[in-house]
């Protein structure tokens, strides 16, 4: 094993440990603000793992979209609404948390089984990748050729979600506002 391989292993162990630890931290922190911060660390370590797999574009897009846009919104809302005393786990584990852990465990087992069944003994072979692998151009080509249907379906799902967000966001507070207005004494 030469120095380069040792470095790769060290980075991999560091990133994988950070990924696991921050993933646990997301669900274990009592304060939602800290959970959101742990989620950023989680996404960043995942990006490092993508870089180790020569997937530069995915790593950058991951940080840009999830850390850059999505988690900022989480932080925004929790900083405004959730006080520091918020404790979703207060009062011990509930039935919901029990089933959540059960479901997460089931998914983890499923992922391992599926990978083991489909990959077989190919996992030990080093992958052959070209220079273009993971580059923006190559990923763009895959998006509009092999994975066009999934790509378009995702965009429609996102559009529906965005429209839903706008509708929920504009109608729900209106009733609250109307109630609030009634309390104001007339001049």
């Amino acid at each position, binding site marked *: 094993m030469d120095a380069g391989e040792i470095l790769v292993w060290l980075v991999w162990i560091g990133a994988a440990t950070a990924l696991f630890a921050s993933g646990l931290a997301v669900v274990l922190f009592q304060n939602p603000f800290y959970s959101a911060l742990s989620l*950023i660390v989680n996404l960043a370590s995942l990006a490092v793992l993508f870089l180790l797999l020569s997937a530069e574009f995915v790593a950058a897009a991951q940080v*840009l979209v999830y*850390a*850059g846009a999505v988690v900022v919104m989480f932080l*925004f809302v929790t900083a405004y609404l959730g006080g520091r005393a918020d404790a979703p786990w207060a009062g011990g584990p509930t039935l919901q948390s029990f089933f959540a852990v059960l479901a997460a465990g089931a998914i983890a087992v499923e992922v391992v089984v599926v990978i083991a069944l489909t990959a077989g003994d190919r996992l030990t072979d080093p992958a052959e990748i070209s220079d273009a692998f993971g580059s*923006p151009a190559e990923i763009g080509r895959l998006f509009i050729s092999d994975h066009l249907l999934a790509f378009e379906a995702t965009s429609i799902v996102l559009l529906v979600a965005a429209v839903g967000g706008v509708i929920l966001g504009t109608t729900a507070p209106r009733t609250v506002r109307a109630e609030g207005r009634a309390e104001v004494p007339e001049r």
Partner: protein
Amino acid sequence: MTPALAQALVEPWWISVIKAFVIANLVLGTFAYLTVVERKLLGRMHLRYGPNRVGPFGLLQPIADLMKLLRKASFFPKGAVTMLYILAPILAAFTAISAFAVIPFGPGWEIGGYYVAGQIVDVSIALLLILALSAVGIYAFVVGGWASDSKYSLLGSMRTCAQLVSYEVSFGLAVLGVVIMAGSLRLTEIVAAQQEQIWFVVPQLVGFLCFFVAGVAETNRAPFDLPEAEQELVAGYHTEYGGIRWGMFQMSEYINMLTFSALGVTLFFGGWSGPILPAPIWFLLKLGALIFVFMWLRATLPRLRYDQLMKFGWKVLLPVATLNAIATAVLVTIF
């Protein structure tokens, strides 16, 4: 330079380390003297002298400022979340400085038998990397404001967050036109494409204007300096910061402006290319011109209202930037 040629001329890793050290310090030095330049320029525009007491022409002012900040007592509010409060300015400074790693300063040289590339690293996702770093930099402001345990800080950081997230979208769409025309996210290839064709500011004038406006908003400079509107928020997210921690926040904002101007030069004004003079000189000249416009804007325009800022960002800038990107895509496909 084609990627294949660049690959043949791979430089040893220690040259990259030296370059990283030199460029990080150059950026810090430039930042220090830009503060003097800005104060002098603003002074002249306000018909006064600006700093002129420390050293000849006030040239030692940044050193005096630095010493003052370093020697200040580093206290923080009783209710502050200590670790996050300390980490936030460090994160801000880190993301600001590291963005310079992918900016090309020249075509690459051969020094003492070694090939030295014109940038620290040349990655295929350079532009995305800068956008991602600036996105991570937002957390410094949000976390710093939240961890300070102060209403002014929290409101300031919420404003910063809303403003940066709103203008980030337009910023990304504005540079998309350049990416489509150059056919690459690699900054070196974008510079090369402009040497073959024309400076992208000519065909992408609308894109450049969107880029510039969004960039002024992204760097919290006047007239978009709402996050630190003194009259409303005392000082925004860094209200509770003092000493060198405050200095690091200020520094990161300044360096962000520097990065943004360097990106503007690279994407729209042909990067380092120019006749007669050496490449880095051309780069610095163009950089200086863009930064001057920033300072000029600050001395000229009053601050926007919050609703004006949001309305402009979402209802004017975003549609224009989107149309520009679509129009570029259609035109590039046809011709």
